[in-house]
Structures are given as C-alpha cells and as structure tokens.
C-alpha cells in the first residue's frame, strides 16, 4: 500500500515536471511573440492603403514607391553608408592592431590604456555625444560627415578590439612558433598563420562596427551638421513630424537589411568554426 502511494506521488511529481516544462515552453512562445509582434505590425502597416497608420484600408505598395522616389532619404542613405563604411574601415584596422598589442605584449601603463579602451563601451551614448560636441565646437570644427566619422571611430575601435581580443585569447600560440620554426619570419607568420586564423574575429568586429555605426542615432545627432543627415536622423525627424506609413516602409526596409546582416554574421561564425576545430 505504502509503496503504491509513493508510486502515485512519483507519478504526480513527474506530471508536475511535465507541467513545468509546458509552462516554460509557453513562456518561450510568448517571449518570441513579444519580440516579433511589434515588428510584424510595423511591416503589415507598411502595406496599408490608409494614410492613418492604425486604420487598415487594404493593400498597397505606394509607400515603398514613394520611399524610392524620396531624394532626402536617398541622400541620408548615402551619408549613412559613407559614415559606416569609413568608420568601419578605420576602426577595424586600428582595433585589430591594438587587440594584437594588448593580447601579446606586457608594457608599462597597460592597465591605464586598457581602461581607456573599455571606457567608450561603458560610457552612455548621450555623455559621449555631449563630450564630442563640446570638443568640436570649442575646436571650431565644422560639424559634418568628417566629425561624425571621427566620433564613430572613437567608439568603434573599442568594440572591434574587444571582439578581436576574444578571438586572440584562445589562439594557440604554438601555431605561431611552429611557423617561425618552419622559417617564416614575423611578417610571414602574421600573414600566413595569425591573420587567416583570426580573420573571422576581425570580420565579426567589422560587422559589429558597421552595424553600430549605421544604427547610431544619439552620437550622430550631436556631431552632425547641415547636409550630413544620416538615415536614423532622417527617421527621427520624420517620426517627430508625425507617424506615417512611409516610416513603416522605411523601417521595414531597414529590418530586411539587418536580417541580411544577421545571416552574414552567422556565415562568418560558421566559417570561423571550421578553422577552430583543432583548438
């Protein structure tokens, strides 16, 4: 009898476990609904024929055609790509170099430099934006694309360095020794062994820098001048003027672009894995 009772208790417990699992799954599903519902709504209403966003009046592509005809948005996109391209290029080269230095060498003042390198990641956007604005104003620099690029490089170096350092941290140093043992000098060792093996990290860092740069609003807003409006700045001023389906269309396009970036980063990770098997 007693063992029967215990059996029943066990069954009940197991049932409770299954129930907990179901609750967890339900939470998972709800979590993803929370993440996707706003985006899906945004996309749906970008095809809304009504001028008023929340009032469905049938399907249309007119907001997209209007978007492609909008020269201000075209110019903003061009500015965004210039800023993101230039700042990614500069910060990837500099960030990779500094990552190599920090992972490979011990030197005086390294701790302080490390802190300086991490600070731009920790400091809030708004504080950094304010700092740079004051600097440019007091230095009598004309605000424009150049000042935006300078500012973006200032925070992107740190992000690239962190990503590349993570890759370097589990780089097997004996691979470099093996190359040197096989008559490769320092430069050949770097070109033929180190660089190809940390390439996924560098590309990952570059991708992160590009995304951060093209998405940045606050710092760009403070360091932009007339004629250097980027896409986020454009969206912001459009939103401030009023919610229109055209913004929905623009947002949907940006969503599509960021999905492309996610898949790109995924492919980089896959490519990286092949090289890391042995480590």
């Amino acid at each position, binding site marked *: 009898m007693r063992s029967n009772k215990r059996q029943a208790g066990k069954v009940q417990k197991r049932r409770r476990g299954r129930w907990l699992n179901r609750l967890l799954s339900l*939470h998972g599903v709800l979590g993803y609904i929370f993440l996707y519902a706003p985006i899906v709504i945004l996309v749906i*209403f970008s095809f809304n024929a009504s001028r008023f966003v929340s009032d469905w009046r049938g399907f249309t592509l007119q907001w997209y055609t209007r978007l492609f005809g909008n020269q201000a948005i075209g110019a903003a996109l061009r500015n965004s790509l210039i800023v993101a391209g230039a700042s990614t290029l500069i910060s990837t080269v500099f960030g990779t170099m*500094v990552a190599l230095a920090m992972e490979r060498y011990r030197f005086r003042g390294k701790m302080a430099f490390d802190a300086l390198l991490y600070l731009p990641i920790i400091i809030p956007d708004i504080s950094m934006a304010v700092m740079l604005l004051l600097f440019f104003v007091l230095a009598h620099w004309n605000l424009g694309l150049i000042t935006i690029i300078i500012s973006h490089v200032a925070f992107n170096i740190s992000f690239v360095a962190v990503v590349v350092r993570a890759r370097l941290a589990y780089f097997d140093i004996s691979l470099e020794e093996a190359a040197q043992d096989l008559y490769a000098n320092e430069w050949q060792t770097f070109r033929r062994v180190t660089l190809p093996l940390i390439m996924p990290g560098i590309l990952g860092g570059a991708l992160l820098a590009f995304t951060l740069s093209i998405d940045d609003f606050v710092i760009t807003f403070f360091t932009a001048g007339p004629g250097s409006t980027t896409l986020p700045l454009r969206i912001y001023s459009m939103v401030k003027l009023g919610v229109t389906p055209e913004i929905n269309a623009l947002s949907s396009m940006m969503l599509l672009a960021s999905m492309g970036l996610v898949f790109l980063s995924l492919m980089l990770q896959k490519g990286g894995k092949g090289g890391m098997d042995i480590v």
Partner: protein
Amino acid sequence: MTHIRSRREALRLLFLISPSLFWLIVFFFVPLLLVFAISFGERGTYGGVRWVLNLENYRRFFDPLYLRIFGRTLYIAAATTIICLLVGYPLAYFIATRPPRWRNAFLLLLMIPFWTNFLVRTYAWLLILRDKGLINTFWTGSLHMGLLQLSRLLPLPIWEPLLRATANPLTLFGTDGAIIIGLVYGWLPDMVLPCYAAIERFDFSLVEAAQDLYANRRQSFLRVILPMTMSGVVAGSVLVFIPSLGAYVTPDLLGGAKSIMIGNVIYSQFMAARDYPFGSAVSFVLMAVMLAGTLIYFRTGRE
C-alpha cells in the same frame, strides 16, 4: 605574453597601439576632460561658456526638480532590469534546454531584433501605444462598438461603466510604463544572451546529482542551477541597467513631454537651453554613476 625587451619589439608595440592611442586620447580623453572642466564653469550671456571655477552646476543638480528626474531615471532603469530578468532568464533557460538544432534557430530569431535599428524598434512601440495607436484603436473602436451592440441586445447596468471606460483612449503613451516597455523591448536580448551562455555551459548532470542527494526541483534550482548561472544574470543585468540609465531615444519618443529621464535633461541643456556647463555637470554625474556600477560589477565578477 611578451615583455618588451628589445628596441625592435618596443617599436612594433608602438606601431600597433599608437593609432588607437592617438584617436582615443584626442577624440575621447581630451573631450572627457573638457566636459569635466566645463562642468565647473558658468553659462555665458549668449550661450557659450564662462571659465570660472564653481560648484554651482553640481549644487543645481540637487534641486528637487532634477533629483526627482534622477530618481525616476533610477526607478525606470531598475524596473527595466528586473522585468528583463524575469522575462529573459526563463527565455534563456527555454532556449538552452532545446535540442541543439532548434537552439541555433531560436538564437537566430533572438538576434534579428537585436540587430535591428533601435530607433525602428522604439518606433514600432509608438505605433502600438500612442493615443491613436493600435491598442487604442481597438479599445475605442471595435471593443467600444461591440460593447455598445451588446448593451442594446441585453440592457443591463454592467455595460454603463465599461462603455464609459472604452469611450476614451487609455493613457499609455507618455507614461513611465511606456518607457519601461520600450526599454525592455530594446534590451531584452542583452539579458537573454549572457544568461543563455551561462545556462548552456551549465552541466545538467549536476541537477541529477542534486536530486540524487534528495533535493527537489525547487531546491535544485535555487541551490545548484541559479548560483552557477549567476555570472550570466549579473552580466545581463549590467548590460541592461547601464544603457537604460543613459537612455535618451526611448523616453524622447515614448515618454512625451511628461515622462523624462536624465538623458533628456542633458539633451535639452545642450540643444535647447544652451547651458553647456550645467549639461556637462549632469552628464558627468551620469558617467560617474555608471562607472561606479561597472566597477562594482567587475569587483563581484572576480569573486
């Protein structure tokens, strides 16, 4: 790691760090010192800065007006962090306990909103929460009409208050709640990813060991799983709390004129009031709070 021994190595090190060092000093450290210096100055008659040394700007920060805003900022950031944790940890647990193939798909689904422009994500909530937004369209539209028809079919006194409630839109936009929703939405992946990393690393045979030693589900969670994944919880909390504290876009778009945070104060001092010294002081306080938080995080992380 190599100690610098030869001239050659010293030159190589210099070559590697000098571009970044130059950039960070000129375009980060000097501006930082500049803000610090200006925060002790005074606003000039036509904007600009009068270089005097006083603590007036910091004293002004302790005016009830700004203290209240700072308090609200702390409250919103804390609430955001707690909600992110309550939603994010189970979500991370859910992902980590799926079969590996599904796990990657779920992570990918998490990454897409993460990589989407923050402004776009906030705008999406504006669509939903504003007075003429999706929720209120339903509330004062379909729901109100439906109730009206029901009340005609079944004339009962219960419809009266419901009809009155649905006659006017809900106040969602411009509240602290709207800002918190927007921030939670914005930073949830930042909570889930570190928690996921910790849970995924966790060796579930330890739970079996705990249960073998007579721990029930609750006990094995509280005594084994949670302590061992605490690093992810702490990392995620810092990653959510710190940017929430410095938020500008979310309160600006979802908070309207009524609900503002410290970020908006800084913005208005620079862009509207042109009081650079006071704006610098506020910005510096914000930075100090955040650095303190980060230091505490690294301290506890080391243990």
